[in-house]
């Protein structure tokens, strides 16, 4: 195995681990801020406590997000020096801006954490949560523009000697993939965070906690999550149209669409014969792919026949995509069901079966996020920057990448174990009821 292989392994592992914490870091502040605001507005200490408890867990996850983010930030230069040389010339602006956004977030997170009782007007403290949200969301936006650039490079030209010329930093940032990708990444980060918090509340209710606090937490998170589900799926649809136009190879590989055709069907599930490219056991929805990709039942969708075979992305991404989409619809179903049972007077949104469904949704939403990221990255292969640079050309020539891979694997394992242990210990024996009771004694 060469350096390029181990560089890929280490990058994949670091990102797979980082995005879990990063998504929590981007999404949870929204819910904290919302809870604190409702708490002040309604003068309801339950919501204030909610914000405080979520924050307490949040700082642990942020810490892991920060350190793993530092890792990937530096590893990019260490593992992909040739790639970063080009990146430095064309798309370093958003990387630079991301640092500022994160800096901004870090400063206000410090302020938010340590000023709960320092202002007479409670809205002042709530206000400090806004820069945290802006900073973390902008970090996600800027980083995603770099990933978008890798998918659809723009804002520069290559001259005959292969040197980059005519650079337009803003054009590179606002490349064709940026709108759909940024929307999808941001809304899904909010979404997985919502399901994480909802799953926790559901878990405690199932465990027999009777206090209204948990029901309030579940309501707040599930209603917000329903809206986010719709937004995320809408963003996914925009992504399909974008892919059809700008990255036909990826879309064709996802859909096992081998022949360019009009009125193309959507292939759901199924099994591919790797030799004959025959698809078995699949559900085919006539014309659906054309509708998704072009908004017209007779639209033409480019197939893999138009792509040279050595530039095909791996075809297994179809399985990843199908699993992800199935989960997405499951999440929408659960959120809609909760909303329906809540609005319907006779319904019981706290029925144990539904609660189990919500608990399952929490880890599933993270699985969907990981799968979405993997299929999007694998779908770009063999390119690291579509049409410009291949993965193999970009990797470091240094030896010892394998050693680094094993060191970092150990590090992430330890981090995951310790972070989870610390989180469990943090809330062990400290129920919300007990905390509320102790507040009352103080006041």
């Amino acid at each position, binding site marked *: 195995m060469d350096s390029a292989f181990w560089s890929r392994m280490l990058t994949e592992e670091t990102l797979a681990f980082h995005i879990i914490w990063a998504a929590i870091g981007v999404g949870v502040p929204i819910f904290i801020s919302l809870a604190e605001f409702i708490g002040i507005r309604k003068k309801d200490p339950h919501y204030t406590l909610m914000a405080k408890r979520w924050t*307490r867990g949040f*700082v*642990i996850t*942020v*810490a892991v997000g*920060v350190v*793993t983010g*530092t*890792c990937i*930030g*530096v*590893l990019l*230069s*260490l*593992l992909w*020096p040739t790639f*970063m*040389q080009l*990146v*430095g*010339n064309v798309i*370093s*602006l958003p*990387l*630079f*801006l*991301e*640092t*500022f956004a*994160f*800096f*901004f977030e*870090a*400063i*206000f*997170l*410090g*302020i938010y954490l*340590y*000023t709960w*009782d*320092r202002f007479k007007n409670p809205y002042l403290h709530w206000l400090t949560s806004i*820069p945290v949200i802006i900073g973390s969301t902008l970090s996600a936006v800027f980083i995603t523009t770099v990933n978008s650039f890798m998918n659809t490079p723009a804002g520069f030209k290559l001259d005959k000697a292969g040197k*980059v*010329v005519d*650079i337009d*930093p*803003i054009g590179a940032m606002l490349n064709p993939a940026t709108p759909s990708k940024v929307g999808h990444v941001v809304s899904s980060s909010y979404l997985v965070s919502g399901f994480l918090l909802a799953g926790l509340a559901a878990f405690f209710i199932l465990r027999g906690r009777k206090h209204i606090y948990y029901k309030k937490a579940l309501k707040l998170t599930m209603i917000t999550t329903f809206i986010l589900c719709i937004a995320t799926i809408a963003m996914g649809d925009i992504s399909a149209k974008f892919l059809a136009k700008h990255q036909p190879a990826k879309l064709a590989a996802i859909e096992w669409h081998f022949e360019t055709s009009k009125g193309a069907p959507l292939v759901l599930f199924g099994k591919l014969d790797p030799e004959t490219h025959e698809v078995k056991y699949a559900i085919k929805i006539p014309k659906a792919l054309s509708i998704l990709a072009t908004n017209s039942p007779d639209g033409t969708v480019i197939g893999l026949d138009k792509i040279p075979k050595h530039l095909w992305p791996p075809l297994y991404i179809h399985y990843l995509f199908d699993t992800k989409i199935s989960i997405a619809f499951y999440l929408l179903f659960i959120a809609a069901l909760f909303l329906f049972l809540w609005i319907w007077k006779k319904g019981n949104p706290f029925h144990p079966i539904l609660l189990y469904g919500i608990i399952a949704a929490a880890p599933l939403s993270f699985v969907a996020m990981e799968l979405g990221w993997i299929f999007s990255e694998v779908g770009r292969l063999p390119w690291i920057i579509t049409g410009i640079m291949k993965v193999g050309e970009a990797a*470091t*020539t*240094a030896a*010892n990448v394998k050693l*680094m891979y094993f*060191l970092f694997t150990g*590090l992430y394992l330890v*981090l995951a174990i*310790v972070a989870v242990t*610390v989180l469990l*210990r*943090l809330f062990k024996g400290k129920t919300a009821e007990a905390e509320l009771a102790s507040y009352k004694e103080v006041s």
Partner: protein
Amino acid sequence: MSLELIGITVLWIFLYGYIIVASIDFGAGFFSYYSYLTKKEHIINKIIDRYLSPVWEVTNVFLIFFIVGIVGFFPDTAYYYGTALLIPGGIALILLTIRGSFYAFANYGGRESKFFLFLYGMTGLFIPASLSTGLTISEGGFIVQSGEQIHFLAGKLFQSPYSWTVVFLAIVSILYISASFLTYYANKAGDRLAMEQLRKYSLFWSGPTILASVLVFWGLSHHNPIHFAKAWDIRWVFACSFVCFLIAVLLMWKRKLFGLSFLTVMLQFAFAFFGYGYSHLPYLLYPYITIQSGLTNTTMGWALVIAFIAGLVLLIPSLILLMWLFLFNAKYVKNEK
């Protein structure tokens, strides 16, 4: 001022900022652990926690900013240093990760742990040691290019006396900077016992800091005579640094004006660091990259400068707010709030 000079100046200011804030943090970790070993933790740990809790996240950002900035302004550095620094950079990263996360675990996790404290103390010494190799490598002789291949001569780095003097300077400097700042902070908090203890540390590490600086010059004169000659041309800058050092130690000794004393420590390092950086120019990596040859294209360069100014407009008020709330707020420092 030309674009490449603006770029390197901005980056150098950030690296300087990192050296100061990270030194305080690294040293604090070591003192925490040392005072635990010598059963004095009740004296100084409260002060250290009080300062570090709200600012730890900010420290890392300075480093990331420098790394992202240098790749942005001088993309060739990614190619050369990226290849060469895989091992030292990777190790520094692992240590930084352990340090940052375990600090948060100990601090927000609600339970003190001796093991966390140990990790926090030890990583504080090893991180600067591994990061300082970046500066050593920049002097040339440790990276060679043959054709398209970049080779890093790790064995040579380990045997180089210059390399070890830099490591020595890095370690003693953090202890000195950290102790000087924490003395000031303890004094402000009105914590006399902690102040006296930290003052002792500060005075103790002042001598080795100057000794290490002299050794680095001696090492440099052998390793890279061209750079040394350029540094000698601006020897007045290093003389200023030394004068600041004397004032700082004198004030510390007399227990007067701890704030001013720390300010002169900062100036001492500012003179030395910018003197070093200025005489290093135009090279970013002897003899392969200069700030002219490595510069990104002009459009990107100016875009980065504009982004930088816009970023500062946002960050400086925020940083002032942070400092006003925690660093210079007497009630917070004295634990009344």
